[in-house]
């Protein structure tokens, strides 16, 4: 019961903030709603007993990536609002209908998934993954997924160099 209430409240927050992110005109407000959205997602992870991921979500997403967004929004001191100059060839309605199509597809999958029963029932209370979450994730990362992990670190290094090259005026 408590879980259900928590789920619906958090879901409402996630979706509500997400809608605000894409509808708000002021970009800074948009970024703020994105932070709130991420915090709500982190809360959802806690509900799913993924504490480590929840903390990483706040630390990396809310505390790191979105700060970058905020920086850029503040540096890009807009003289004319970006939405004013609409491309006459642009078809927003087409984009909208495409999105609806994607949703329909997803809904179809969900409905189909509903017909086939879930393989294992959720019995998370007190299991190893919930209690020793950090240890389990760490173990997986450094054994089975060591190579993807290292590739991810390389990716971050490349992104870092790329960002510096792009942002620096003269090298």
């Amino acid at each position, binding site marked *: 019961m408590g879980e259900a209430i928590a789920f619906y409240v958090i879901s409402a927050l996630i979706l509500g903030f997400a809608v605000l992110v894409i509808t708000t005109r002021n970009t800074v407000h948009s970024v703020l709603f994105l*932070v709130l959205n991420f915090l709500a997602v982190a809360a959802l992870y806690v509900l799913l007993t993924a504490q480590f991921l929840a903390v990483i979500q706040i*630390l990396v997403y809310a*505390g790191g990536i979105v*700060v970058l967004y905020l920086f850029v929004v503040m540096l890009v001191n807009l003289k004319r609002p970006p939405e004013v100059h609409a491309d006459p060839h642009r078809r927003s309605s087409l984009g909208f209908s495409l999105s609806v199509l994607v949703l329909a597809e997803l809904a179809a999958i969900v409905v189909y998934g509903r017909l086939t029963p879930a393989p294992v029932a959720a019995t998370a209370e007190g299991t190893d993954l919930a*209690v020793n979450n*950090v240890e389990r994730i760490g173990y997986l990362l450094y054994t089975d997924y060591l190579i993807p992990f290292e590739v991810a670190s390389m990716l971050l290094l490349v992104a870092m160099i790329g960002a510096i090259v792009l942002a620096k005026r003269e090298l």
Partner: protein
Amino acid sequence: MIIDTYVIPLLKILIVLNATLVGVTFMVLLERKVIAWVQVRLGPMRVGPYGILQPIADAVKLLLKEDITPARADKWVFTAAPIIVMVPALITFAVIPFGPAVRLFGRDVPLYITDINVGLLYIVSVASIGVYGIILGGWASNSKYPLLASLRASAQLISYEVAVTMTLVSLIMTAGTLSMVKIVESQYMAGVWYAFVQPVAFVVFFIGALAETNRAPFDMAEAEQELTGGFHTEYSGMRFALFFLAEYANMIVISSVSTTLFLGGWLRPFPNVAALSFLDFVPAWIWFLLKTFAFLYVFLWVRATLPRYRYDQLMRLGWKVLIPIAIANIIVTGIVKVAL
């Protein structure tokens, strides 16, 4: 059952929140007094004996002041910014262990609100939210000095967060856990404070902590001589007070965290030496408060003594000195761990 799951945690939250807020206000007084003593002055003396009631006078003054919102400020963000700064500082206390379990009225009551398995990461991540308040406060004021200051502050916080987190990694490697309580317990097992096991991490952490709390010599975000007060230039009244209190709350948080991580938390000095067991008559939480206080004193002492770094020098120190040292420390820790 209800008492254990709801009443006691709520009571603890209430006590910790109140103690923190009172502590913060008296921290302001302490700072004024300590700096006054360093500078051969008396400090506040008028309100109450030895100015002890000064924080109350300050609070009344700030509450009664007109709360000005600049005409062209972004009202919502301007209002939210001080709150965003204050809240993370307060909720961090949820995982700080003030002492081990004590018996009260026939129940075992642990002297911490909660102990989660990612406690240390929780503190780091919550602290990283606080920077929004500073950035947004400066941006929403729609004024040039605050904007410059908030850019400085955010760059500073992000850079030093890296160094601080790196030192924490080497500490986690030593302790083998992320839980704040278990870190203290592992120091008890090891029989030594981690400040002696990880002296490099301790020093880097302390410098990073000064920078992360925006304290001298890294207080360029509020350098009144350069930026006329920094990101809170346009704030007044209680909203300004929130920024102010958050800074001191952050100092207390950082001091408590470093006490837990490096100075053995609630443990007495030399926790394993039986000859010193007479020290046990002092309750554990008193030891914790004493160590935290010592840290806070160093904060003030540094502020009274050192000039201020320049923005670019601060960044250079962070990226070119502290982060490499912290990474080297991780590598050395790893090698030692494997070798033993």
